[in-house]
């Protein structure tokens, strides 16, 4: 039988400087899933990496691999960092807790910005990437499909996303606290991704004097600049653009900071020491933290902005309660499905095995008994059947009453397998059918 395991860290357990060390780019995530599959072929794995969290989901045989320490070792090796840097920030969850956590994450209840819709798309991307690489099968397929359905239900049926303040709007609010007017200001975007687009959209509404987009890919820069009547500028001239800029939005996928304190210090004189607002929404960060210590330089990273957004959640408490109710209901549903999925066949195998043993013993006994009538034979058959049923009644009843995906239940099932030699009969299902009422979540993206 399979058990669920989750190892991860998020914005609540790890600061930005730790998260950025173990974050995966899309390409890195795909390579990591392939590496995990190669190393642990018996296990199912999915890797979710966003700016707020890195979570490794695994479904494995009881006492199978990967074990938590192997997952930590894998993360450390993959990123080339010492495990001590991040290990104390990790959380581990098992079985039902994994289900509850993933449903909570997909519903954005675990996000720094509650009600944000981007997480649902990120969970879907993580699942798709793992599925395409054979990382998901009998347990993670239904788990992630159900998680997507739950997330969609929460976001569409509760008011959790209403009145939500976006990171972009918070960035503009901060800009208004620094600058009085924007008609004489220059906004520079370094990077041309989705987040840059969202933030630039807000700044474009302020009608700045110039809006520059600087990206390694000139085509992407031109495309984004065109959308906001801006100018695409060469990445090689970044220092010149920084000198001209009053507001800088940085969101590249660079693994090292592209704006350093030394660089900005050297530029300050040319900038006439005027205030500059740097919004670093990249992970790993694009701007060295020390830049924020410079006089008249205001540096905000994704955590700074999200924390402000999160502070607006009080007014949505009712919606959060409703969302938690939905999540709890679906966790129960999934657990029941999992229980039926795991226990049904096992109870069936147990019952068949012992009735078969009893039948074999009965045949042997009957062969030794001469002149036995059909009625007496029938009575003996009934007797053995009743004895087997009585013997199995208590353990089966207890299993049926216990809740699926709880540690105790999985221990029972595992013990049952070992004590009654049921493992050899078990077939590792590769079915991808989900729990009852699965919703194939291919709904609108974020």
């Amino acid at each position: 039988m399979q058990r669920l395991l989750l190892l991860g860290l998020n914005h609540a357990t790890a600061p930005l400087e730790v998260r950025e060390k173990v974050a995966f780019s899309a390409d890195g995530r795909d390579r990591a899933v392939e590496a995990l599959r190669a190393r642990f072929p018996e296990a199912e794995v999915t890797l979710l990496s966003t700016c707020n969290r890195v979570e490794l989901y695994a479904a494995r045989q009881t006492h199978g691999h990967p074990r938590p320490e192997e997952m930590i070792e894998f993360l450390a090796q993959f990123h080339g960092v010492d495990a001590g840097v991040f290990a104390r920030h990790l959380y581990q969850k098992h079985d039902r807790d994994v289900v509850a956590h993933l449903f909570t994450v997909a519903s954005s209840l675990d996000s720094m910005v509650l009600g944000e819709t981007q997480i649902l798309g990120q969970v879907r991307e993580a699942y798709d990437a793992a599925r395409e690489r054979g990382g998901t099968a009998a347990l993670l397929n239904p788990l992630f499909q159900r998680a997507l359905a739950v997330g969609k239900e929460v976001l569409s049926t509760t008011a959790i996303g209403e009145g939500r303040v976006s990171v972009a709007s918070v960035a503009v609010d901060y800009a208004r606290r620094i600058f009085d007017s924007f008609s004489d200001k220059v906004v520079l975007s370094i990077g041309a991704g989705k987040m840059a687009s969202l933030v630039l959209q807000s700044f474009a509404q302020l009608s700045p004097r110039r809006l520059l987009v600087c990206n390694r890919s000139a085509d992407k820069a031109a495309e984004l600049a065109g959308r906001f009547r801006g100018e695409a500028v060469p990445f090689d001239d970044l220092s010149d653009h920084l000198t001209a800029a009053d507001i800088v939005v940085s969101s590249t996928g660079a693994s090292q900071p592209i704006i350093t304190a030394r660089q900005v210090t050297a530029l300050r004189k040319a900038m006439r020491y005027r205030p500059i607002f740097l919004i670093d929404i990249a992970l790993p960060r694009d701007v060295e933290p020390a830049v924020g210590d410079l006089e008249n330089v205001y540096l905000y990273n994704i955590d700074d902005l999200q924390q402000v957004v999160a502070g607006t959640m009080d007014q949505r408490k009712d919606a959060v309660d409703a969302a938690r109710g939905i999540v709890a209901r679906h966790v129960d549903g999934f657990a029941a499905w999992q229980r039926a999925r795991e226990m049904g066949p096992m109870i069936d195998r147990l019952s068949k095995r012992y009735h078969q043993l009893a039948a074999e013993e009965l045949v042997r006994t009957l062969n030794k008994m001469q002149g036995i009538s059909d009625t007496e034979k029938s009575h003996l058959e009934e007797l053995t059947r009743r004895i087997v049923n009585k013997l199995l009644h208590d353990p089966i009843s207890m299993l049926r009453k216990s809740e699926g995906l709880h540690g105790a239940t999985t221990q029972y099932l595992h013990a049952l397998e070992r004590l009654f030699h049921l493992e050899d009969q078990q077939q590792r299902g590769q079915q991808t059918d989900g729990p009852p009422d699965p919703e194939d979540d291919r709904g609108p993206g974020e």
Partner: protein
Amino acid sequence: MPTIHQLVLVSLAILLFAVGLGLSVARLRIDREGLRIASKACVWSGLTAALAVLVWHTAARPTGSWLPLEDNFEAFIWLAVLLAGFVLYVQRTRPLGGLDWFVLPIVIVMLVAAMVLGKAKPKEYVGTTWYWIHLVSVFGGALAFAIAGAAGAMYLLANRRLRSKALPHGPKLGSLERLERITFASVTLGFALLTVGLITGWVVLKLDGQTGLGAHWYKSPKVVLAVAAWVVYAVVLHAPINPSFRGRKVALLSIFGFVLMVGTLVAVNLVPGGGGGGGGNGGSH
């Protein structure tokens, strides 16, 4: 000399300004529209009471000119009225949250000073044209520096909030850019007026020689502090030439300059031999 009834009315104005200030500061915890309106009503009422005292005192003056800065009582109330009027004007035209937190305490201090120091008798030379120009320019400068100091303090608070990366409750303090602009504009105006005040003060000294400063007038605390304030503001105005000297440094200096100006007033009125002979007019002669 204010009458007892006038002093009671000034006390009422102080109380109204204090309540208005308290209600405005309370918005840091509970940012309700009701508090804003109540605070504004108190400030308007306080301003009305202070103006009423001013009119009453001027109208009741038995002799003398119509010049409004004839004694400490009028001078300090004028400063308070103009400062409170500035707050209300800004809040009406282009609101600047938190301006009253920094300006109203100065208003209250001015009104208290009017009550405490307003009993001094005016000097004979008060009526001269040079002296009147001196008074108006120095008081005008003090007013501008009070606004610069308040804007500087607001800048520091706004800057601190931005550095702490939190969006606290209550009204926004205004952008750093606007606060810096207000500081510069006020310092520029105040510097010009203070320069005129210093020159006319020197003229009064040379022409009339009745200022009570004596032969060593240049050593008197009033003159030293006034010149020091002038130097500080000259440094502040130097910022556009040397851009590294802006932001927090300008804000701190504008506050320091205002403290020196307050020191000048204290020297004039409270320090024996400080320049006002312990009972001079308006703290500026």
